């Protein structure tokens, strides 16, 4: 059995009523990577994760984890997968210790040292009740419960959602520190691009339920470019070029963000006769926002009437 691909989906689709939440998802997640799964709210990230873990049945298509059909994951396969839910829900009446005691008997590879280490990192008292924990502390406890079984695949659904910056940093640090193992794969969804930039090897971006990007971080960064074209007067109409994400028109300036910026794109832009054509660097966050932001042209040229004092 070839397990170099840990997660694989083919045409995975899920509808809620008449609306597709995930459309024709074809995805492969290689073993040992940190894979960031990105997209705006409602783009289908959580739906994908829930389908992958057999918590939601796909409308059509198929998927596998460790080569096993996601519709019928066996307890043995589940033991190899750690899952951290986005709202870090636990039984409120349990204490931190009871959470560990409840979880441990199910996992043959439960590592109590890891559990204690994580809850120690978050300064959690074993006798504290879940209902009395802050959101960040609960996230830490969930992380401990997810990591202690020594899973080969970690699926984290927006693990830092709703955490304050300190708790957030603490969670990400623990994650990086405790999960970096060559054979461990991490699949996480997030809105925090700084985290993605720090930890991800690969990213995938869902846009309105459709997978549009699946590549390394570097490739994405190189693919999404911004150029500024300066013109002596009003800029000409925006040309039709492949991969155009956004265009900003201002007095004497046209700024374009494109995916797949290459020689052909540059040649098409130079044909507009700009006085100057210069690349403008984009951070990953900018690239991501441009990618997922509203497509098309935005004009900042005021009309003559509006320009009158």
């Amino acid at each position, binding site marked *: 059995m070839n397990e170099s691909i840990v997660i694989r989906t083919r045409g995975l*689709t899920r509808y809620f009523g008449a609306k597709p939440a995930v459309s024709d998802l074809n995805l492969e997640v*290689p073993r040992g990577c940190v894979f960031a799964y990105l997209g705006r709210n409602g783009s289908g990230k959580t739906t994908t994760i829930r389908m992958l873990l057999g918590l939601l049945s796909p*409308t059509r298509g198929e998927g596998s984890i460790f080569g096993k059909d996601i519709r019928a994951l066996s307890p043995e396969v589940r033991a190899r997968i750690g*899952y951290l839910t986005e709202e870090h*829900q636990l039984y409120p009446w349990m204490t931190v210790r009871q959470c560990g005691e409840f979880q441990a008997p199910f996992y043959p590879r439960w590592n109590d040292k890891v559990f204690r280490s994580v809850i120690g990192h978050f300064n959690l008292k074993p006798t504290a009740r879940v209902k009395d924990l802050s959101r960040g502390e609960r996230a830490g406890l969930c992380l401990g419960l997810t990591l202690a079984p020594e899973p080969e695949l970690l699926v984290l659904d927006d693990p830092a959602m709703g955490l304050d910056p300190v708790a957030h940093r603490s969670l990400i640090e623990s994650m990086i520190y405790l999960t970096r193992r060559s054979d461990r794969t991490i699949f996480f969804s997030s809105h925090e691009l700084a985290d993605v930039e720090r930890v991800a090897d690969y990213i995938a971006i869902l846009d309105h339920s459709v997978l549009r990007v699946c590549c390394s971080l570097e490739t994405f960064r190189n693919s999404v470019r911004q150029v500024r074209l300066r013109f002596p007067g009003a800029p000409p109409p925006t040309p039709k070029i492949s991969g155009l994400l956004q265009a900003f028109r201002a007095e004497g300036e046209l700024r374009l963000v494109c995916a797949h910026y290459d020689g052909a794109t540059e040649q098409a832009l130079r044909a507009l006769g700009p006085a100057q054509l210069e690349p403008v660097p984009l951070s990953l966050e900018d690239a991501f926002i441009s990618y997922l932001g509203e497509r098309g042209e935005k004009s900042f040229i005021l009309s003559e009437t509006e320009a009158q004092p």
Partner: protein
Amino acid sequence: MKALIQKELRENLKLAVLGLFIFALILTLFVLNHVQMMKSLAAGGPPQGYFMQPLASPGFWSMTGFFCAIYAAVLGWFQIHNERHRDLWAFLVHRPATRTEIFLGKTIAGLILYTLAFFLPLTGFIIWARVPGQVAAPFEWIMLRPVAMHFLAGIIYYFAGMLTGLRQARWYASRALGLGGALIVSMSLVNEPHLWQALGIMLIGGVSLATAAWGGFHSQGGYQGQPAPGKLALISTLGLASLVVAFFAALLLAAALVPRNTDPWSQHQMTKDGTIYRVTQWFGKPAEIVDLDGKPLLDPKTGRMTELTGFTRRLCNHAQVSPDFSNHPSRPRWYDQSFNRFTLWRTTPDTFWYYWTPYGRLVGYDKTTRRFIGNLGPDGFSTDLSPAGARFNNERNERVLGRIIIDEQTVYELDLEHRAIRALFTVTNENCEATLHPTNANTFRGTIGAVREVSFNSYDWDYTMVVTRCFIYLLTPEGKTVWKVPYQPAYPDYKQVQIAFLEPTNRFALWLFPAGRALEKSGWKLPAHVTWLDRDGEALKSVDLPNLPHRLKRPRPEEKIISLAIPPAIIVTLPLLGDEAWPAAIPWWLMPYSLAAALVCIPMGWWLGWRYSFSLRAQLGWAVFYLAWGIPGLLAFLCVQEWPAREVCPGCKKLRVVDREKCPHCGADFAPPEKTGTEVFEPLAAVK
């Protein structure tokens, strides 16, 4: 699984304590009520039948039934509701355990809590009732059989509650229909003649609901994605519940559409002077009273038709019995058997006396000490109670004031104040077997088929009426025969015997009515016989009364409407659940309506299946189900199915369901999402 059971026990402990408290409170109210009643009795108040033994009181059983059903359903629902948050559910099910193990873990814990909440207070209640000096009434463990059955039925409600928590459906649609299934099971089990039938129904219902709940764990409460047994169980559960819904909808429809019954109904009645009149009544109209020649009875003062109220005052006194020579006269259903174990027979200033059926003897309790004082049988008073002693055979005694009691041949007068008994009348030298139906092993070997104390004012003892195989006797309270007449025509076609006491006194009329089944079997043609007797029982004249018009023309419009909601399978199988004593059947003449409704459901369901591209196998399977289960079947189908969206196929331009890989019309694949030119893909490799 141990960890899961422990977690469930801890998580739902509060609910168990609450249930225990509520049930303990209910039982405490019963205790207080009993204590109050005993005080009232000591002060000379009237006794209250079955409530004398709280463990055998139908009120206690009903309350237990309600508690078990409601509490178990709430517990089952809560165990799911606690984890209904999407992430908490994911935390529960995403672990190295099968869904079956998770289901079992929850169920075992839930049933432990249910059992504790039920049995702890019940045990206390039983201990209280069994302490000598608390309850002055007979007790047998069999009296607790209904309680045990209610407890078991609660388990069905538990799974129904669990299923309600799991089901992915709207409340107003079908979410709570599992509870409807449980309701049907518990209603039918108290109505079954035999205990084994009740247990069978409970087993089938319980397994079905448990399997439906188990299936729900596999599919997060949906229908799709369940294992086949789960789907089948869900369909049968919702099918049963849909039957309740369809039945009540049909009742409402019938009430709204069918006008009030205006058909007349008639009966023969006899006045004090021995004249028979036919009284015909209609809803909303004055009664018509005519003699056997059809002449109206006119009021001599007004010359108008006599009104019913005035006529009623002119009717004679009468007493009626229904002799029974079968081996099990009036055999009660299993449920009723448990409280028919004893009858409060009479009270004296110091004692309570009960007829205790299994012993066939009267047992007495002291009012003050509430302790057993002894028993009275045909062989007299004894302080030991043994099932082997001489027995009364009181099933044929239509008791009025409890002054007489019988065995197979003899009528006794009771003197409970002195704990004594006296033979009043013994049947001897009767031989008329030829006039009776053939005897067999199931035929009662005794002689007396019915006896009744006759009291015109509910206090005095005017006569005693005895019906044997051969004769009908009228006795004085002292046991002297006033008259005896042959019992002709005899049992079993004529199972109702009535004596009318005419004025001036010492004139009588003997009515023999045909039994309901014999009458129906004869096509409503068996006449009632009336014989006028003088003081010695000599027949003065007799008449066969003309048949009264059969009241109901069947099927009535409301029956037709209601039968539309009854599945043909029920009409076919219901007779299997009854027996000779308790026939359970829906008339066959309702079958065409039931079948017609089922046949209409087939194209409707087929069209829906076609619209959503069901396979031929599935279509045929559902069609058979509609045929068997009719309109409730179609309702169940609508409840369980999850209807996928439909989109236009780019290949054939027809609407196709989105949950198939290929178009069912043209076989085309789904088109991949449209490219925008902004896609960035590259082959990914494992990170070393």
